[in-house]
């Protein structure tokens, strides 16, 4: 492979990382807002949040991307830059999965903690901010780590829309070289390395957060229950 082609691949890596960071931030915001809303005491709030989760988790990420790229612009009259369109589609979809993680971790906090908060006259929002979230967030990190890997894999979908990410650069190089095995092996390896680094970062984060709650991190590796194991509960 020539250095020009490598440059193409590096540009692809950069686009993939940008997309990953943006959509992870959006997904995290959606996860917390929707996940907390799903524990709200008003049924209408819980219902709307649950409806959001079912709809966005029910649909396919790729169909969602097509929808954002092709249906939104004529319908609402705004054409998004591809990066934002990809961020929107991925962030909303993976945020729905993330909201399940947030809800699950919040409901797993010992109900006695809530009672302790009531007995000290904390308002519901103070209980959430001071008691429930600080205890629930460290528990969310391992499933969020799995979800982040799924999101990384999901970013490859934007290449179908012609966005120049890592997967797309692989296609360009294949066309240039008329040879596939080498370039796709490299591309897969790069994804694998990014995934490995992400896992490492998340594990470090888990360790630090759990130390703050006086707990030890999970020693055994968990089965990835990303996107899916929660899908039914």
């Amino acid at each position, binding site marked *: 492979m020539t250095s020009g082609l490598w440059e193409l691949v590096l540009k692809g890596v950069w686009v993939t990382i940008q997309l990953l960071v943006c959509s992870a931030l959006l997904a995290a915001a959606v996860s917390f807002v929707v996940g907390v809303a799903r524990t709200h005491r008003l049924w209408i709030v819980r219902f709307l949040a649950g409806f959001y989760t079912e709809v966005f988790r*029910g649909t396919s990420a790729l169909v969602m991307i097509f929808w954002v790229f092709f249906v939104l612009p004529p319908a609402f009259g705004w054409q998004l830059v591809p990066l934002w369109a990809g961020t929107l589609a991925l962030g909303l979809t993976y945020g729905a999965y993330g909201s399940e993680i947030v809800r699950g971790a919040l409901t797993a906090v010992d109900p006695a903690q809530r009672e302790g908060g009531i007995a000290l006259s904390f308002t519901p929002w103070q209980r959430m901010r001071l008691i429930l979230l600080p205890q629930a967030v460290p528990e969310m990190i391992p499933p969020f780590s799995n979800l982040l890997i799924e999101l990384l894999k999901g970013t490859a979908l934007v290449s179908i829309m012609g966005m120049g990410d890592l997967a797309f650069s692989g296609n360009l190089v294949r066309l240039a070289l008329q040879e596939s095995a080498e370039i796709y092996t490299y591309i*897969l390896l790069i994804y*694998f390395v990014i995934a490995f680094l992400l896992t490492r970062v998340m594990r470090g984060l888990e360790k630090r957060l759990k130390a703050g709650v006086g707990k030890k991190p999970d020693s055994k590796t968990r089965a*990835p229950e990303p996107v899916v194991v929660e899908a*039914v509960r």
Partner: protein
Amino acid sequence: MNWDWSAVSDFMPDFWKGLLVTLQILVIGSLISFALGLVWALLMRLPTRWVTWPVGVVTEFVRNTPLLVQLFFLYYVLPEWGLTFSALATGVFAIGLHYSTYTMQVYRAGIEAVPVGQWEAATALNLPLRRTWSAVILPQAVRRVVPALGNYVIAMLKDTPMLMAISVLEMLGHARLFSQEHFQFTEPLTVIGVAFIVISYLASLLLRALERRLAH
């Protein structure tokens, strides 16, 4: 928003064709992932590192890299090696392989969840290994395994549209083709979007019922 019901009815014949292909991919892909996943899980239990290490690395690699790129790899590289399959066959195999790296962990967790005492009792009764597996361990593991496998089938459903990228005409492929021919994007894409939501919602209801029955 302009919504054209006639476009919907024009698209429906293509939709049914696409749905059929999607379900085909789902059924065969699931079967492949169930079988291959069990193979990986059993191989990982062998006492020799010469097997567990390579199997562990390969499955970890497949699980942590995008299915889409794996599809491209198989679709473009296999013919270079002289192996030619249809796009559908390649896609089904790729998705089955990808998900087998998840199902193997389901099997592992299911097997590990059977209490050690069960193994000890089987040994105490002098049951042969084959009988221990078939009569004691697996029947107890299935209960935990089935719901988790079902979840991965639903997840797989939502990944089937990727096969469009290697020219398989499943639901999304048909929707795109129709859109390009008629310059109507909204209707076919919305129809299949709703179809995915409905199918996965129904599937999750079905799975919940199954889970309840297995719990008894």
